[in-house]
């Protein structure tokens, strides 16, 4: 019987090795898998390459993982925001690497990695410094830049509802990059607010089909990054 559920977040992330590439779902605070991130801090894997749109906020979740010195390199579109302090400090000290990828290119590079497409052409960045060193080619009289797929060893994802087969739904704009990351990672680990019986999700409304998911942990009352920051919390 297929049963992808896992009893604890600790067990779910236990085999992430040093040096792994890890995609982390979420756009800013919405959709950030805080419990899985904190489990990864407890687990302690280091030298990670992390892919997320941002670099976390305050001193919890992704920012705490970075602050704990576990991240060698960030791949993201927007590494600073009003409440991000940890990454900017380490970056200015030369203690963390950064690869900047435009948001839409980041999304599509992740999607095609899951779709078996090694590269595609996009108009984004043509004529800018971010296109330097990249192949530029003309189609139908317009210039485009070649961009490669972006894969990961693991993805850490927060969803709303899951079943034991790994079918997922999300809540509102917390969806963002998560369905794409589920496709692009070798091992996709999901924290679900609610685990339902097989058949408990309408087949028409499944956003991530179970084929893209490997492990599911129920975290029925997830903390929200913004709530933790408002309370000036830090982790560990």
């Amino acid at each position, binding site marked *: 019987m297929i049963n992808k559920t896992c009893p604890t977040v600790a067990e779910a992330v236990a085999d992430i090795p040093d040096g792994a590439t890890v995609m982390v779902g979420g756009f800013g605070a919405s959709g950030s898998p805080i419990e899985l991130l904190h489990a990864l801090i407890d687990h302690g894997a280091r030298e990670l390459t992390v892919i997320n*749109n941002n670099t976390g906020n305050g001193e919890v979740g992704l920012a705490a993982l970075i602050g704990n010195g576990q991240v060698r390199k960030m791949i993201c579109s927007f590494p600073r925001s009003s409440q991000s302090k940890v990454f900017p400090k380490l970056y*200015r000290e030369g203690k963390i690497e950064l690869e900047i990828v*435009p948001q*839409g290119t980041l999304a599509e590079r992740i999607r095609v990695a899951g779709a078996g497409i090694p590269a595609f052409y996009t108009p*984004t960045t043509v004529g800018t*410094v971010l296109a330097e060193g990249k192949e530029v080619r003309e189609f139908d009289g317009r210039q485009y830049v070649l961009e490669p797929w972006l894969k990961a060893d693991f993805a850490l994802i927060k969803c709303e509802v899951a079943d034991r087969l790994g079918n997922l739904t999300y809540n509102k704009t917390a969806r*963002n990059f998560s369905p794409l990351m589920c496709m692009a990672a070798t091992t996709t680990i999901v924290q679900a607010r609610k685990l339902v019986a097989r058949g408990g999700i309408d087949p028409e409304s499944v956003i991530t089909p179970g084929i893209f998911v490997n492990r599911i942990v129920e975290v029925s009352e997830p903390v929200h990054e913004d709530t933790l920051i408002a309370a000036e919390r830090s982790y560990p």
Partner: protein
Amino acid sequence: MSTGWTREQMAARAAQDIPDGSYVNLGIGIPELVAKFVPEGREFIYHTENGMLGMGPPPADDERDLDLMNAGKKYVTALPGASYFHHADSFSMIRGGHIDVCVLGTMQVSANGDIANWSTGAPDAIPAVGGAMDLVQGVKNIFVITQHTTRDGEPKLIEKCAYPLTGVGVVSRIFTDLAVVDITPKGFQVVELAPGIGFDEVQQKTGTAILPPT
């Protein structure tokens, strides 16, 4: 010298140039104000690149949904007829030319429509591009709302951008505190002057030649 248009008036003026039924993406800052000035009888549908069409105004503080944010990471609402989608679909809308109008702030715009609004290129700056480069390449009409000059009085409409570019030749129209300016094959072209503003003042505060209203 007159003070020209206020921030709200610039936003209201830009809103006048957005046709009924447009799909619109609003950048952070003054562009966000456009939503307050939708002309009578028109309906716009707002896209936010983190995955929603049909974005509504900010909620009351006690009605926030922590999972409902816009691309500026501010809490928003969803109007009837809204839809949620993932980032690849959201940027397909942008890159694929399905969004009608994007209104952006900027640091510099050049006479050929280049825009520089993501980085000063300073050595200690942390680069952060977000969706800006996708938007300027993909959206059908790129509108810019900006003060005509910097706080220090330096022109923002110039011959060639000094800052790193966001996109090349992408801007179609600029709404400043002094004028509405089009990018034409001949360069900047004043379409309309703010009340009480003379063309000479606009030329003086522009970093290159600008054509007077016809």
